[in-house]
């Protein structure tokens, strides 16, 4: 663990790829010396002391959560891009459709929203940082920042523009506030010029931010 003074997270800088300036809330809601983090640490030590879990189990779980990326999310998208019937089932019932790929959603339900020629979707959680972690891993720091959480709902087009994508006026922007039991995945439109590409090539087009709707995948020529 870093010292409380050490700025060990990356938003507000360039490392996370976000062009947004979040310097105004660099600690968002979290400070390791606050009441709740200290309480969590006390509980962690208690359950280990009482042998409810082993110290190694906690670390193993943390390592597992840290190690997950967007692989499962990308797999879902590539399957939807290449199998129209799967896509239909995915949009109708996300949880059931990804179960076909042996991807469990744990306690949450998955809602998949499709970007098309006339609709663009953006995901946010204004209350905290709900995010489909089982399929996308840990959320980026910008997703958890108060700046993103407040701006995504009331000026989504400006936020997306700052990520580098201009949404045309005749395209409807639909924002989804992930405030309860659903988790959301954006199904980006398959880029033009990818006919005949295999799954590996398609997978390489998919970025984390495009699965939240902050960007769109594109073929770099």
């Amino acid at each position, binding site marked *: 663990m870093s010292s409380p003074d050490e700025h060990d997270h990356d938003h507000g800088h360039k490392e996370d790829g976000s062009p947004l300036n979040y310097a105004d809330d660099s600690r968002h809601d979290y400070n390791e010396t606050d009441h709740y983090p200290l309480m969590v640490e006390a509980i962690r030590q208690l359950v280990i002391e009482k042998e409810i879990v082993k110290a190694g189990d906690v670390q193993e779980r943390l390592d597992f959560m840290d190690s997950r990326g967007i692989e499962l999310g990308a797999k879902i998208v590539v399957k939807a891009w290449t199998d129209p019937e799967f896509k239909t089932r995915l949009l109708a019932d996300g949880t059931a459709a990804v179960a076909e790929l042996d991807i469990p959603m744990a306690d949450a339900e998955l809602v998949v929203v499709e970007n098309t020629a006339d609709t663009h979707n953006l995901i946010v959680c204004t209350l905290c940082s709900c995010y489909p972690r089982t399929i996308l891993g840990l959320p980026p720091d910008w997703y958890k920042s108060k700046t993103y959480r407040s701006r995504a709902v009331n*000026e989504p087009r400006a936020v997306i523009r700052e990520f580098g994508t201009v949404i045309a006026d*005749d395209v409807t*922007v639909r924002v989804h*506030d992930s405030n309860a*039991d659903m988790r959301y995945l954006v199904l980006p439109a398959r880029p033009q010029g990818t006919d005949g590409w295999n799954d590996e090539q398609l997978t390489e087009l998919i970025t984390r931010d495009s699965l939240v709707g902050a960007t769109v995948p594109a073929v770099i020529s």
Partner: protein
Amino acid sequence: MSETELGEPLYKTGDSVRIAVAYPPGHRRTPDYIKGKTGIVERYCGAFINPEERAYGFAGLPKKHLYRVRFEQSEVWHDYEGAAKDTLDLEFYEHWLEGEPS
């Protein structure tokens, strides 16, 4: 609705609902910015353990019906600067919804 058992969902897709303006203490799942706004039920999501009670050590039962409601951005923010048809969806447990079921 009975406090002890889960009844049938009151609303269905397409119903117009208003979000209650209430400020009960505790961690609630309805953000302030949407209170008092009117939208259309986009889908019924199922019944879920009530997180507003589970957060405080209660069982959160009976489960609560959960809906996704779609709002026009221009209804939510009077100074909204996007296209007129832009929308915002949120999820609500049934006790936050007001309006006559159709």
